[in-house]
């Protein structure tokens, strides 16, 4: 295989394998310690894996939301100016493919409740990302779920209860399976 073929990206693996001078391992980098992995691996899986200890309530969440979120997302989560966070699912709502103006938010569009915890902890409040404690994030998550009519006012949200929240939109999600070729253009 000529050298230039290696440059074409997809063929790189083939070139690497043929080149006997290429070692199995280069030995670059250093081992990641368990401590640094634990500190950095903040992603939450949809089954709840990765959720930290702690818990939160709708009542506490209401206070934190009013203080730290309402200015951008509105007093009840629908007023803006930024993303609308509250839109309970309703039986008589038109399907999204027929309703371009229908608001998409946690209650009617998000397929997993764990995403709320994951996203708010990493990215919100927008002006002070990463500033909330785990318990605060649990409480805000509880408030958002309650405002979207997904849990009761007295529910406690923690690593066990959060992944168990049933999200109405989940049943609508399909994975893209298009492969190009001839239409139709779905």
């Amino acid at each position: 295989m000529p050298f230039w073929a290696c440059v074409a990206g997809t063929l790189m693996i083939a070139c690497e394998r043929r080149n006997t001078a290429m070692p199995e391992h280069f030995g670059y980098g250093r081992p990641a310690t368990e401590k640094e992995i634990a500190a950095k691996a903040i992603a939450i899986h949809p089954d709840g894996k990765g959720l930290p200890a702690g818990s939160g309530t709708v009542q506490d969440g209401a206070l934190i939301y009013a203080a730290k979120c309402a200015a951008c997302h509105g007093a009840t989560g629908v007023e803006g100016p930024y993303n609308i966070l509250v839109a309970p699912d309703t039986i008589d709502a038109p399907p999204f493919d027929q309703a371009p103006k229908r608001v998409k938010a946690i209650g009617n569009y998000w397929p997993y409740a764990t995403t709320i915890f994951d996203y708010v902890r990493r990215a919100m409040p927008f002006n002070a990302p990463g500033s909330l404690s785990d318990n605060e994030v649990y409480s805000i998550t509880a408030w958002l779920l309650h405002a979207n009519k997904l849990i009761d006012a007295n529910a406690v949200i923690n690593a066990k209860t959060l992944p168990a929240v049933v999200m109405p939109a989940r049943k609508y999600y399909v994975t893209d399976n298009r492969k190009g070729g001839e239409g139709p253009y779905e």
Partner: protein
Amino acid sequence: MSQKMTRRRLLLGGAATAAVVLVKSSFGKMVQTGIPEAAIDPTKQVGPLPGVLGTRSPFEHPQRKPSLTSSQTPLQDLYGMITPSDLHFERHHAGVPAIDPNSYELMIHGMVDRPTVFSLADLKRFPSVSRICFIECSGNFRKPDKENVTPQDICGLTSQSEWTGVMLSTLFREVGINPKATWFLAEGSDAAVMTRSIPVSKGWEDAMIVYAQNGEAIRPQQGYPARLLLPGWEGNTSVKWIRRIELSDGPFMTREETSKYTEPVKDGKIRQFSFTMDARSIITYPAYPAQLQKGWVEIRGLAWSGRGKVQKVEISTDAGKTWNAARLQEPVLDKAHTYFRYLWQWNGDTAAIMSRAIDETGYVQPVLQELIAARGIGTGYHLNPVTAWLIKRDGQVVYSPEKWK
């Protein structure tokens, strides 16, 4: 403005603008600080001497068009397949982070044999690869209801660079991927700590960790000091400022693959993980705000597909009734912007011109009505319709707004 500049202007009789710039150094030598905008006669005056950085001609003003969340490439001002780095589109979720390359680290962990932390220097020691490909945001579609919109307004969220870095497969072998791992999380170190879940198969296929763009270090807006590059896939998945890759046995269902970057499709369904960018093309000349004159016109533009090479670009100059093949500029690369040209004689009548891309899977770029018929009016991302430009009798070229229904 300095006194010297003012004096210089006076010397040139006022013909030169503020960009004039031969100034005397303390040694009495003329040194460059810019390029004269309008010397009276360039053959009668020594120009600026070599300098440390090149500049654009003061006559050229290509500019991105920024909003709060993105900035678009001025496609109508470009002549080739490569986007100058400072005109590459931007889309980020919490601004551009400032990252010190000396403390930068990429951690790969999860379902791997050897969880490893790589410094930037480590990444650069691995065998490197360069490839030219486009990056396009899957939200690269506007539906303007007016005529005065440019190619930049309609689809300026696509750009192309030569990217250099290490194949992700090289890093995968280095850390040893558990065969049961099917997805990986890519996480950025911006203030949104942006994350996407990517199938491991893409990592083996053609994914890269890149640290260079068009021959120099990646620009901060494009992910300095290193980003993920997933050729042909929606731009958001090529996570910039990448700091962490976690191998897993399923997707993480992050906000950017649920609340955003999903699209409603038929029967109330919501389509997820629509990674690949479908074939698309756009005529960049003549397009608004060009002004045409009767006679020969070279129609020019860009075509691309996330599923492979552009096989053909067809042009219609009669509002889509008949189509003819355009010439493709070599090299035609995999998952890359391809420049096309088509010579046409404009007789001065009103005309609607348009282009459509056909890729190597046989996919033909659809018109908007076909997309809406297949997906519904509530769809959003991954819209790639044929774009028509209307040429009026006076030679004015405008966008031709389409009904959204």
